[in-house]
């Protein structure tokens, strides 16, 4: 219910929303939780395992119970914390993990079966009969598991990622963070102040005390006004810093659009903030006390009750009881009384608790039970004089406060136990460049927080080389925080530690009995701390119970590790931009448009797109187009864009020496105006890449690489030069994208070129020649090289002329009876000639395997030369390159098939090799394949069996030389 005169919801504007289809009204500035409480809705969700009815526990992102699904359709957003979600007009919230309704949940039957569903029960059963796990048990468990559900539809919202840089990142805008930000900003530092809340001020919004004579929230407003007016300050509300990474990198999630009715712009932005220094002022999280039925709706943390009262003007009950073990709990009773709310009792487990006026104080009392399934109606209090039942509709409990140390643990820092406050505090220096201050550092009075904020800012400023202005400590509350630990109230029944995962004191004790005594074992065995709240309110309590059960102290028992993210982050935010085409760059050749216009299906080749084939009217299958294109190259002339091959321009007096070192064969002997095929090894002696390199001048080469390895080769050349031979005077640069390059292949290729070039090609243009050419006023480069076995050229022009040249070449080719050809035909042409691609050069292949052993010059050192000589790399037993031609009735061959002796059973131990490439060759009139076969070159003429289990094919083949067509090579040279 709302409490008249309380709260900071200034506008008072009414906002309608629905929960499980029922319309409610909240006030602008409400969270879903505060609005539901204002409407006296206590039952908000169901627990994970026992489907226990649950209400709101907290007022922050640590909430374990009040998880809801927001929206519907593709917008459906599961597991949203009602304590974080702001209401807006049209907000639709739904409860989760219940059927058929929140009030009557059939799965609550689990609650009755609880004795059989204790810690780790599933490890001990569901094993018989064996086949039943996948068929019966697991499907039942899976259906029961999970909280909310995904919509099943593709994400339709916009998400974004961004970088930010600053001198100082201040995390948390409570009194500590505000103070630190003020000092640093006044000193001129570039400051980012980030807070997960939609309104800055932290606990100042939830408390009633004053700073410098101003109400806390007004002091915060004053500080924010000052900060907001400064150019060197960025205030990031709704921004949770969720992760800490190396060298001052912080991950943060900004909730940009969740509070708006109309989703324009991104819903969330995932920030990478690089900060030279950081002040962590993340505050503290209050912890519950474990007692029987402490999970009833209406039982909340005491600080949350204060927050709802003071910030949102809501009292979660009409007759509130307060239960605590520390002075802070008294504030809740005091604030309620001041607001005119009835406080039925203040139960303080300490026998020496301070006096309290205005309500019954039960010193040394402990709440040992609560009743009211869908909303608490009474508690049982145990004191020295016996047990007493007190009627109440809200219990505010406080087991003390845990500093929010999580971010200090992201780089493996382990927090340290502080006996005085009975909590873990950050280890100093746990994160390089980060200073912790305020409540997250164990300082629980406002005065201490402000002082630590000042001190932290000064440390950061000194390290940044800036001078802190003199600042007086504001006048503020400095009441000491006194606590006497109380983790679990003894007694029968189930007392919850981890609300969401339904882990009780009994479970932790049973884990200890079963020797899961390590805190990590206990966590994993009971699932404590593994729910969506990551145990924010349960870890320390569970640890204390474990310590007690194992007879150890808390520090000896240790903690589990806090890992990123601090609070859950949507995959869509972390991967913003990746959806659809955004995952990887798209690279297009200059002929792309012309190819598409001709109806060519474009296929991915690495990041590039290349035409598969160029269909002609009447052609129904790719094979028809491919066969035609092969024929036009063999008989006339074909044109193919080969620009995707890597091109590296290499210049300098030592360029030739450098190439001798990176290639297995010699390039220093290559004449100017000539091209040579080169083989490149990795240092371990295996083939890395191949390609042709042209010598354009005495000190000028152009290397080509395969499309796939272009980047790798460039990196390799840089590596070799800079780390192994920096003394060589050579420079190189990738020019892959600067030059458009086209293959012109076929018997009429010279005719085509002579019609195009200013000066016709004479007899001084033999196979493997290269040089400059003029075509229509453009200077190009011509290489007489062939990947088809035909008389062929590759013509390169600056990329800006590529589109025009392609159209020109294709038109001229067509006039000569030829035309463009695509990847399919290119593949057939090269298989017919036994030429290699990455199907063969797959990383496990040696020069020896390819029959190119002699290309590894023994006269010089080169990368990979030494290790290529290891016996294992040139053993004749290795699988080595051969050609295959079918001889039996079945002629079909598919890459990926295995080779066996003719009469051998097709099992692994009989394997003789495998197929890498296969095609139907219209030129040879047969299916052809390239394969690697044990002792291959020695087995030409043998008939072997090719087995493709996957496609049910078994084919007999003759082993032949891998060059199927024109083995003498006369066509290319002629």
């Amino acid at each position, binding site marked *: 219910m709302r409490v008249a005169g309380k709260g900071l919801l200034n506008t008072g504007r009414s906002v309608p929303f629905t929960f499980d289809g029922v319309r409610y009204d909240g006030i602008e500035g409400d969270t879903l939780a505060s609005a539901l409480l204002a409407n006296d809705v206590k039952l908000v969700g169901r627990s994970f395992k026992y489907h226990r009815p649950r209400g709101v526990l907290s007022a922050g992102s640590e909430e374990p119970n009040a998880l809801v699904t927001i929206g519907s359709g593709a917008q459906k957003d599961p597991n949203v914390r009602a304590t974080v979600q702001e209401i807006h007009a049209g907000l639709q919230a739904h409860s989760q993990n219940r059927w058929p309704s929140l009030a009557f949940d059939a799965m609550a039957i689990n609650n009755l079966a609880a004795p059989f569903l204790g810690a780790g029960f599933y490890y001990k059963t569901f094993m018989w009969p064996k086949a039943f796990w996948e068929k019966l048990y697991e499907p039942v468990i899976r259906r029961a598991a999970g909280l909310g559900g995904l919509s099943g539809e593709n994400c339709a919202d916009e998400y974004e990622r961004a970088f930010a840089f600053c001198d100082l990142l201040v995390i948390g805008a409570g009194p500590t963070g505000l103070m630190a930000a003020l000092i640093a900003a006044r000193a001129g530092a570039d400051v980012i102040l980030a807070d997960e809340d939609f309104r800055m001020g932290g606990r100042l919004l939830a408390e009633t005390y004053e700073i410098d004579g101003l109400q806390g929230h007004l002091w915060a407003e004053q500080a924010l006004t000052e900060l907001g007016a400064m150019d060197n300050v960025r205030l990031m509300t709704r921004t949770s810093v969720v992760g800490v990474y190396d060298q001052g990198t912080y991950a943060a999630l900004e909730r940009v659009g969740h509070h708006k009715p109309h989703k324009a712009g991104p819903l969330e932005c995932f920030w990478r903030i690089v900060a030279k220094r950081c002040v962590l002022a993340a505050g503290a999280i209050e912890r519950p006390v474990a007692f029987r039925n402490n999970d009833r709706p209406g039982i909340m943390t005491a600080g949350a009750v204060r927050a709802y009262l003071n910030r949102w003007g809501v009292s979660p009950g009409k007759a509130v009881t307060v239960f605590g073990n520390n002075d802070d709990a008294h504030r809740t009773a005091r604030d309620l009384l001041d607001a005119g709310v009835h406080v039925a009792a203040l139960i303080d487990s300490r026998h020496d608790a301070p006096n309290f006026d205005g309500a019954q104080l039960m010193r040394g009392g402990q709440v040992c039970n609560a009743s009211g399934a869908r909303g608490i109606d009474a508690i049982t209090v145990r004191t020295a004089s016996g047990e007493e039942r007190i009627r109440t509709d809200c219990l505010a409990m406080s087991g003390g406060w845990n500093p929010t140390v999580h971010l200090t643990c992201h780089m493996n820092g382990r927090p340290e136990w502080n006996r005085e406050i009975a909590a873990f505090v950050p280890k100093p220096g746990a994160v390089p460049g980060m200073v912790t201050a305020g409540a997250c550092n164990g300082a629980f009075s406002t005065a201490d927080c402000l002082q630590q904020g000042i001190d932290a800012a000064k440390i950061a400023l000194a390290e940044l080389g800036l001078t802190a202005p003199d600042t007086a400590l504001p006048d503020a509350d400095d009441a000491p925080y006194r606590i006497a630990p109380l983790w679990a109230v003894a007694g029968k029944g189930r007392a919850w530690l981890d609300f969401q995962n339904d882990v009780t004191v009994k479970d932790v004790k049973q884990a200890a009995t079963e020797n899961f005594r390590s805190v990590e074992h206990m966590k994993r065995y009971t699932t404590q701390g593994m729910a*969506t709240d990551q145990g924010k309110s349960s870890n320390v309590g569970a640890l204390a119970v474990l310590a007690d059960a194992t007879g150890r102290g808390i520090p000896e028992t240790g903690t589990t590790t806090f890992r990123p993210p601090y609070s859950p982050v949507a995959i*869509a935010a972390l991967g913003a931009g990746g959806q659809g085409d955004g995952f990887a760059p798209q690279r297009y050749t200059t002929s792309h448009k012309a190819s598409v216009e001709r109806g060519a299906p474009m296929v991915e080749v690495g990041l590039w797109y290349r035409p598969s084939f160029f269909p002609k009217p009447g052609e129904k299958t790719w094979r028809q187009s491919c066969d035609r294109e092969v024929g036009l190259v063999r008989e006339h002339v074909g044109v193919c864009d080969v620009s995707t091959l890597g091109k590296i321009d290499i210049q300098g007096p030592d360029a030739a020496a450098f190439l001798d070192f990176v290639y297995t064969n010699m390039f220093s002997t290559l004449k100017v105006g000539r091209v040579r095929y080169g083989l490149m090894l990795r240092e371990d002696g295996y083939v890395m890449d191949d390609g042709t390199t042209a010598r354009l001048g005495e000190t000028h080469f152009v290397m080509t690489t395969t499309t796939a390895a272009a980047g790798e080769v460039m990196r390799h050349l840089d590596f070799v030069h800079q780390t192994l031979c920096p003394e060589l005077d050579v420079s190189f640069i990738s020019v892959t994208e600067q030059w458009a390059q086209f293959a012109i292949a076929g018997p009429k290729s010279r005719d085509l070129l002579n019609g195009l070039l200013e000066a016709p090609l004479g007899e001084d243009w033999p196979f493997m020649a290269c040089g400059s050419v003029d075509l229509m006023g453009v200077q190009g480069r011509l290489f007489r090289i062939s990947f088809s076995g035909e008389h062929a050229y590759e013509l390169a022009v600056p990329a800006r002329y590529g589109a025009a040249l392609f159209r020109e070449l294709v038109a001229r080719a067509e006039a000569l009876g030829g035309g463009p050809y695509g990847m399919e035909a290119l593949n057939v042409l090269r298989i017919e000639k036994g030429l290699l691609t990455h199907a063969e050069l797959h*990383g496990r292949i040696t020069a020896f395997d390819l029959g190119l052993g002699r290309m590894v010059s023994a006269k010089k050192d080169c990368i990979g030369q030494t290790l290529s000589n290891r016996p294992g790399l040139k053993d004749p037993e290795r699988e080595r390159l051969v050609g295959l031609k079918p001889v039996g009735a079945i002629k079909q061959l598919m890459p990926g098939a295995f080779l066996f002796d003719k009469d051998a059973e097709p099992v692994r131990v009989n394997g003789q090799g495998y197929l890498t490439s296969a095609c139907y060759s219209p030129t040879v009139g047969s299916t052809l394949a390239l394969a690697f076969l044990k002792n291959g070159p020695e087995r030409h003429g043998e008939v072997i069996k090719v087995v493709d289990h996957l496609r049910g094919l078994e084919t007999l083949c003759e082993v032949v030389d891998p060059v199927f067509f024109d083995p003498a090579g006369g066509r290319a040279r002629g």
Partner: protein
Amino acid sequence: MRFSGFRVLKEGLTGNKGWTPHWRDPDPKPEYDVVIIGGGGHGLSTAYYLAKEHGLTNIAVLEKGYIGGGNVGRNTTIVRANYFLDGNSEFYSHSLKLWEGLEQDLNYNVMHSQRGLINLFHSDGQRDAFARRGNAMINQGDDAVLLDRAGVEKILPYLDFDNGRFPIYGGLYHPRGGTARHDAVAWGYARGADQRGVDLLQNCEVTGIDIEGGVVNGVQTTRGAIRARKVAMVVAGRSSQVAAMAGMRVPVESHVLQAFVTEGLKPVIDHVISFGMGHFYISQSDKGGLVFGGDIDMYASYAARGNLPIVEHVMEAGMTLMPMIGKAKVLRSWGGIMDMTPDGSPVIDKTHIDGLYLNCGWNYGGFKAVPASGNCFAHLIAQDRYHPEATGFQLDRFRTGYGVIDEEGTGAQHNLH
């Protein structure tokens, strides 16, 4: 204590007061026949099979922290036998067979779930490579089905078939692939070993290996010296440091591999999906969390935590492949220390020191190997002969170039895979 549904029922009715420790916490004895350094999945299964199959029970497993606290307790739980090179094929096939009877063998429900694994491919070239893999799997006696695009669409209708950066051509389906509950595997083996008399010594860090005249005779630990006839090193993530205690250098670089789990969600992904083009793989746990991961961070690290570039890359891959998971929220990320070897395949071998054995180099694929690794390593330790299904993991393959097992083909050199 034997576990059963009946036992759970009985305990439930009597207040769950009868449960006993899964394993003892004994004090170290002065001497053992075999000391196993490392209480992770592989070390525990080694101890289990030594006791079960080789009659050796005077064994200790030394663990510097708590058992199962290494990579067996932090992985994406995938179990598969879809390798294609000799050495790997027979070994992982052997492992999968052990998985298939593991619950009954251990009397512990490790929740091995053969829900099927699909490796997607996105080009003709990739299909050819997966065809070779699938045929190799069938050659080995395992199961594989080559799916075309329509076949994938039928079982994974929620993938983005229309807009993804790399269109889906098809997939290699491995019906017997799946997942298991990782912690339970460690605990099941630990309990089984303990029941057979193996001493599990937690918080017992090895600080030295005693070698005399080329023969090992014990170890120094934080809980005192322990003599042993045989010492086995099974310490993925710390292999280089422990091997150094024996004066050895191993072909291992330690890298961090991150993995992620989302909040619990109602069932939406029923298979294990591997998207090689994006270095992304995903399944959904029985608790409802989406469990997924990607590539290693690509720098040497012992920090057991990673950095954002890989985090974001993994999420981008998820978004291009299956944008329906966008609203799933990542709950927790973690990093494990991987023993990366040059060829991506492990080592199960003797060393040049008599009585000292080495099991390391599981790269990012050690979880599925846990049963066979322990089984074959136990065989080697007990009999000083390679197990017939694990003859390929020898240490000197790099030096000689014989039998290098480079599944990825990215190069049998460090940092290329």
